[in-house]
């Protein structure tokens, strides 16, 4: 289990990335440090997905894109009712899906 959701700061130009890239999207630098993204983020857009892919059980699946105060955005599953744009959410570790026989864990966003 991972405690905190993290992004990757380029040591050359300070640009924050999520996910990690082999080279910085701004300066092509290759040195990164892992930084915490924070405990609260804001919902920018979302969907309730009814046509599910193989390996997902939750129906409908709530997916959204959030933004952290440092400007980093992330996509993830949402939990809770009455979802709307602008909602304050917190990242929380949990099971996301199964791939083959394997359970996959990661951060979801909850109210």
């Amino acid at each position, binding site marked *: 289990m991972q405690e905190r959701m993290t992004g990757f700061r380029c040591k050359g130009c300070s640009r924050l990335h999520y996910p990690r890239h082999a080279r910085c999207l701004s300066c092509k630098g290759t040195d990164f440090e892992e930084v915490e993204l924070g405990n609260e983020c804001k919902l920018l*857009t979302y*969907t309730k997905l009814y046509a599910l892919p193989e*390996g997902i059980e939750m129906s409908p*699946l709530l997916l959204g894109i959030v933004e952290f105060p440092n400007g980093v955005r992330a996509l993830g599953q949402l939990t809770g009712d009455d979802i709307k744009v602008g909602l304050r959410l917190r990242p929380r570790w949990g099971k*996301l*899906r199964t791939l083959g026989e394997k359970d*996959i864990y990661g951060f979801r966003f909850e109210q």
Partner: protein
Amino acid sequence: MRDVAIIGCGMTKFGRLEGKGLMDLLAEASLRAIDDAGAGDRDFDAVYVANFAAGELTRQTAIASALVDQLSLLPAAADRVENGPASGGSAVKMGLLAVASGAYDLVLVAGGEKMTHVNTNIITDIVATLSQPDVEYVHGVTLPSLAAMFTRLYMQHHGVTEKHLAMVAAKNHANALKNPYAHLQKAVTIEGIMNSVMIADPLRLYHCCPISDGAAAVVLCPADVAKKYSDAPVRIAGFGQATDTHAVHEREDPTVLKAVQLASKQAFEMAGLRPSDIDVAELHDAFAILEIAQSEDAGFFRKGEGAKALEEGKTAIDGELPINPSGGLKARGHPIGATGVAQIIELAWQLRGEAKERQVSGAKRAYCCNFGGFGNNVVTHILERMD
């Protein structure tokens, strides 16, 4: 670089084609294109085959090698080209570059996909593997879900409504009624679309393209010898291709299709044309919002004004800029590897004046946008009638 012409076009009907395998479809479309070019007795230098997921969907790989063998085109060079939903556009571009460079003189480009025999949730998952694996795919992202989140943002920022989405779908369904190759040939009403089942809120079933089988093929040669083959060759006047961040959330403005903007600019510059010079366009309307967004980012309408142009009828077959006279992905269907080639064929037929009931009168120049990934790899082409 040499000028390159399209001298032959052929495609299968798109749809649920039971009893026909991927290789049957590719061979059928290819033979029609070769016949259309009058090149039945000619040796081809190379064959490019666009396909997204034959290994996963039909358990066949190395399909370009298989196709040249089927078609008795040995010992032609053969390559499979995969660029997600823009595989077809990429394969046409590869053929174009090969002829333009002088390396090859006669090239076949075929694209195809066999999909409808696989369960929808498995196909949805296979297509979703084109998304960013660590921060998109693991969460259960699908292409419709990315399109839905894009649609919601577009509605907030650019005033697009659910009715606009339905208008795109209704127009393209009406166009497809005049296209015998189209997968979905039925009239649908705005109300019917707005009441169809929810796929990914706010996207309903009729805002999304179907899953289809089908293949399409074109024959390319240097423009200066094109008239030896065809009475009505079509010149490829320009092309473009650009990429964008893999994860959609990393884009500076997630409502801007930057790769469409860049790839379009490249194609227009190469052709020495402006968007206002275009008479007909095929856009990648896998989801209704994409036709509106691409019509803006390609430069035909200002950002935020695509929906208004649609409302005013500008994108209808008899409008200022007809978009998707074929029915688009929405109604012609979307056999993934075939789509980019089928878009080019529709435009070649339009420029040759062979589109019958859906003919855009006097069409001389055409634009095409094939949208790979969720906009992270986009291929454009501009075609021109050779008079």
